[in-house]
């Protein structure tokens, strides 16, 4: 995106009357060339390859690895006939809905609202605790929650005080477990977005609403929420895209199992490409994942009627 801005500004300079426009144009291209080359090699070529491979029977081993053929829409046709694919789409949506849209979003907003206008010490104490989850690398989060949820782990030990029989949480409630882990990991991001947004809501408007007789709840729903609409949309999109791509956390906690109970699309894509050796099919799944992200982003923007 920085490249974009640079291109714009040099373009504008070109149009300065009396300047040596032609020379500058070439110079700009010269300066841009390295970044364009880098983008082409590491961004556009892989994307085009992804599109191409999604329509082939490319595999990691076996004859089709050597003689890769163009198979048209075969991968997509079998994908829609593949029950595991359907299951993993549903699992992805459940995971997305509960861990990002509801969990991180609502909890993040709630934390931000509760911390708003409180004592600085209180804010920073709570803030540090929440942000600790966010700065922890995903694989470390996975280990923490493995220790927490595993047979006779922290949670079971804690519950045994109340004479609750130990439960293998990761096997009995796998989806709930990974959702909780992801909420813990990601909530701080939403919280910070909303803290910034709430700080931007002018106090005068809230005050005049209060004078007009609006209660605390009414002020929040009628004044604050509409004013931070843009942040809600941005946050919603960013956490959706982040959550769609969550792999490490689920893979290390449950490996997508037991059975297919936590097989979200990234996990299924990985399994197909690298455990089942079907690289072409895996790539096709990644394209669908991309589509879901784009569609979700459009839906949010339309729903909140936000212009970006």
């Amino acid at each position, binding site marked *: 995106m920085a490249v974009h801005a640079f291109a714009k500004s040099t373009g504008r300079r070109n149009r300065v009357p009396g300047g040596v426009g032609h020379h500058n144009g070439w110079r700009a291209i010269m300066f841009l060339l390295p970044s364009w080359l880098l983008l082409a090699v590491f961004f556009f070529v892989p994307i085009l390859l*992804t599109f191409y491979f999604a329509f082939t029977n490319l595999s990691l081993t076996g004859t089709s*690895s050597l003689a890769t053929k163009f198979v048209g829409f075969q991968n997509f046709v079998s994908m829609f006939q593949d029950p595991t694919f359907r299951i993993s789409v549903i699992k992805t949506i459940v995971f997305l809905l509960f861990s990002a849209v509801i969990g991180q979003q609502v909890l993040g907003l709630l934390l931000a609202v509760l911390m708003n206008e409180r004592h600085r010490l209180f804010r920073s104490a709570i803030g540090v605790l929440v942000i600790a989850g966010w700065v922890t690398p995903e694989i470390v989060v996975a280990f923490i929650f493995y220790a927490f949820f595993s047979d006779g782990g922290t949670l079971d030990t804690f519950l045994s005080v109340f004479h609750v029989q130990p439960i293998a949480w990761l096997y009995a409630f796998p989806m709930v477990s990974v959702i909780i882990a992801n909420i813990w990991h990601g909530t701080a991001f939403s919280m910070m977005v909303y803290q910034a947004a709430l700080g931007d809501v002018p106090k005068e408007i809230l005050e005049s609403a209060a004078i007009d007789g609006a209660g605390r709840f009414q002020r929040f729903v009628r004044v604050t929420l509409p004013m931070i609409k843009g942040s809600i949309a941005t946050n919603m999109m960013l956490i959706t895209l982040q959550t769609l791509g969550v792999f490490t956390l689920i893979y290390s906690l449950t*490996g997508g199992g037991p059975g297919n109970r936590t097989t979200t699309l990234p996990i299924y894509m990985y399994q197909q490409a690298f455990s089942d050796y079907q690289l072409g099919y895996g790539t096709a799944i990644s394209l669908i*994942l991309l589509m879901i992200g784009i569609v979700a982003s459009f839906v949010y*923007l339309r729903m909140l009627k936000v212009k970006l």
Partner: protein
Amino acid sequence: MKKRTVCIGSSIVLACAGLSGCATNSSHTSPAQTSHQQAAASTTKPRVITVAYQQFGNPPYFNQEWLQQAAQQFEKQYHGVTVKLEPIEASENDFYTKIDLMMKSASTAPDVVTEDTFLINADGSAGYLQPLNADVKSWPDWSEFSAAMKTGSTSNSGEVYGVPYSTDTRGLYYDVKIFKEAGLPVPWHPKNWNDVLNAAKKIKEKVPGVVPLWMQVGKATGEATTMQTFEMLLYGTHDTLYDAAKHKWIVQSPGFLNSLKWIQTVYADGLGPSFSQILNAQAGNIESQQLMPQQKIGIALDGNWLPGSWQKNGPAPWPDGTKAYQLTAMPTEFGQAPGYTSMSGGWALSISHLSQNKQLAWDFIKIATDKKNMEWYDVHQGNLAPRKDIANDPAYENAPGQFFKVATSFEKFTHFRPANSQYPSVSTQIQAAVEAVATGALTPEQAMQQYANNVQRIVGASNTETVSK
């Protein structure tokens, strides 16, 4: 608005692009090019050959010690050449994926690689491996390898892709003490699947606190789930996995369904271990290194190499292990002829097609698989030796703490996995079906249907068939 969406869209594309990155270097060197490279390499006198192998679980790693010994002997004979061992820390499935990715590119391809014989055909036809036909032809030791084992590392069209260095058979381990407590006969010779199931039920009833019947059912245990569990059942029915005459995969059959039903019964009746123990990549180690030495498993369906863990310098030394547990043959479904069944696989040393030191790599393989070195490895690891001169050696046959004699007797009725390059992909579908049935996620009928659909997608519907009755 559009611009933002495009930005976001492209950032996901970027994330997905990671997938395709691995395929960009999938170009293959033509044979002509390779021989040219080889010629060039021999004039510049290469100094290092690399040997890639799997390392997983707790030490000691006998394969590493074996390769190290061979490397020392090799370096003495070939002055100025160093052998670099390249252990790959990965579970079984990850190891297969990693070596495939390594062999795709000349800059990462090892010279010598250990190949599971179930993958050797697939990797050979993918162009990753160098055919060794000319090399084995002029190697006198090759006649010492048993014919069955040679087939295991040879493709349908006759290319020899590796030199086998270990093989195995599978059967039922049973704990003598638990059996006596449960009032079951010792020695135990079950005649059909029901005998095994009833024994497990009796153990559950009479000996609380032990796992009555252990068999791998997780996707995480990879090929072990396919071979030690599912194929040990399926090849004891009237059906198999692959119709070698018609070159078709049998995707639905009564035997397939019955095998899944049997697995379902074991787990639904609580005769198996807990899911947190079994659906784990470490399940094999939990079984052989923790629960069996504590005599917490009544019956285990597993490979003959299992007591290797109990050796004096093994990961869980237990000198009395082969007295506490006995090995018996796995019966067929109803006891139909030949009465018992087993599966055999094994490992081979292969040369990467992109290796620049093919001659030196071959010279190394010859040393590593000579009688002395191979016998050392197979005795320590608890594997059966594919060389006849080792199999007939009394020191090997009666090696303490092993079941070599019993396990070798299973070779009479053993089966090999389909020598088809699609096998690895089909095998992972079996694992998915087995785990789904064991965890109760799918019924056996649903799991077989899903297996059929997925295999049809992978190999093409025209390469599959259904057997009814």
